[in-house]
């Protein structure tokens, strides 16, 4: 019984906020335009789901964000390894990475649009450009930090250089690489939404900005709820994947803080 309460308890806060929303909206303290009732927003989501709009918009946004994320992940890990193992590459890329990291790379969206047009390619490219940085940084740091004694033990037991890379370096670096990926995923979503808002068209971002232009306030709020849920589910999935892949890691046993 106690376990059931513990599992349900976190949702109580969310429920409380939902209730507060509904009551506040109904109270008349704000206009329905500023804060539509939660029930109105949920009804709108339901309608969109029924008409296929939700699937269409959400699907496109997820496709672009995840495609960009996948490219950023693969290229980022590859680049991270290459830079770690190659002095010249490290010399070339270190300043690029450290200067590029804190830049608001979304500012480059108009340039990407100039070069690649208004279609999915630009949106996905923007996502890749933004999301690749945390992946490269994490992979590079992790690879350079692999304990010397792990490598020496493996060589002592007869491993070749090539075997070292995928039998020792990669698993040893995996925890940190996963963290980099977990940072990159929300970035991919944020950037994709912004790109969609700027470039318009279909997708959750485009739908939301169109709704705001038409003063369609339930539409705007519906979009927020939809993307919030999508983001939450994706992050949860990532955490599950991490727990599976890193079952051996000591921290997996320890509970995570907020």
């Amino acid at each position, binding site marked *: 019984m106690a376990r059931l309460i513990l599992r349900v308890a976190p949702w109580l806060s969310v429920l409380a906020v939902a209730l507060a929303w509904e009551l506040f909206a109904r109270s008349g303290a704000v206009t329905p335009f500023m804060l539509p009732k939660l029930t109105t927003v949920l009804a709108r989501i339901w309608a969109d789901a029924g008409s296929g709009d939700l699937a269409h918009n959400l699907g496109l946004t997820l496709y672009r964000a995840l495609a960009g994320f996948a490219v950023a992940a693969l290229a980022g890990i590859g680049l991270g390894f290459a830079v770690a193992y190659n002095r010249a590459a490290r010399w070339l890329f270190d300043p690029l990475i450290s200067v590029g990291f804190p830049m608001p790379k979304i500012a480059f969206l108009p340039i990407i649009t100039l070069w690649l047009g208004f279609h999915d390619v630009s949106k996905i490219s923007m996502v890749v450009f933004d999301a690749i940085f945390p992946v490269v940084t994490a992979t590079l740091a992790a690879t350079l930090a692999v304990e010397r004694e*792990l490598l*020496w033990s493996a*060589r002592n037991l007869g491993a070749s250089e090539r075997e070292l890379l995928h039998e*020792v370096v990669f698993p040893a670096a995996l925890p940190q690489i996963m963290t980099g990926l977990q940072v990159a995923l929300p970035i991919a979503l944020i950037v994709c939404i912004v790109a969609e808002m700027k470039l318009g068209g279909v997708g959750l971002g485009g739908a939301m900005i169109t709704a705001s232009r038409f003063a369609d306030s339930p539409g705007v709020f519906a979009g927020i709820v939809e993307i919030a849920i999508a983001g939450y589910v994706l992050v949860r999935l990532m955490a599950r994947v991490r727990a599976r892949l890193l079952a*051996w890691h*000591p921290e997996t046993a320890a509970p995570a803080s907020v």
Partner: protein
Amino acid sequence: MSMVESKEPPVKHQIVVEALSHTYRPARGREVLALEEVSLAIAPREFVALLGPSGCGKSTLLYLIGGFLPVERGAIRIEGAPVAGPGPDRGIVFQHFALFPWRTVRANVRYGLEKLALAREEQERRAQAFIELVGLKGFEESYPSQLSGGMKQRAALARTLAVDPKMLLMDEPFGALDAQTRSLMQAELYAIWQRTPKTVLFVTHDVQEAVRLAQRVVVMSARPGKIKATVDIALDRADPHIYRSPAFAEKVDEIWNLVRDEAIKAQ
């Protein structure tokens, strides 16, 4: 009638170190001379302890013999041939275990056997044998993060022993363990050495540990490391009370006096 006295055959040393010097060149900061003109010869099946204060280069010497660091000045010969990199003939055991955290105990112990390209059943059989030898039966499927320090070191030992190395290079292997576990592990290591024909080169800074285990204790000076003295330990280890005997205490004292000045210099 034979006019020639029977002589013992000349000992062919297994590990020969000649005038070895080593300098550390960190990416930032000054160069450090870690070892200076060290010469040492170790016979097969000997149990030799390398003893000295922190920073005296004893671990460096071990790593050079293990082939993890390149020989720049001087020479190291293993069974007549110069050292050419690490290999399963010189098994290494580290202070912090260096177990692969993503592999279970069984998978760790199997690692070297996989590299020997043995048949899968043979790998499993041997791995299981060594896991049981070090007393970890029942923990085959545990991950290192689930084990205590002593158990981790047993697993590391099993992993190294599984490939049947002729020589064991041990770098303060019990340094990270608590006193009771350390004591138990020392006894177990000694028992294993007695049963199998291996040469052991054991690095430690603990004088008692060195006298307990080794036949010969090589005392090193503070940095730059040189060999200060070599002391033979001729104790009857079959006697269960030997470690409380005056003979033991005298040996410990003798060696501690040699080390003390160096330890002070190393501060």
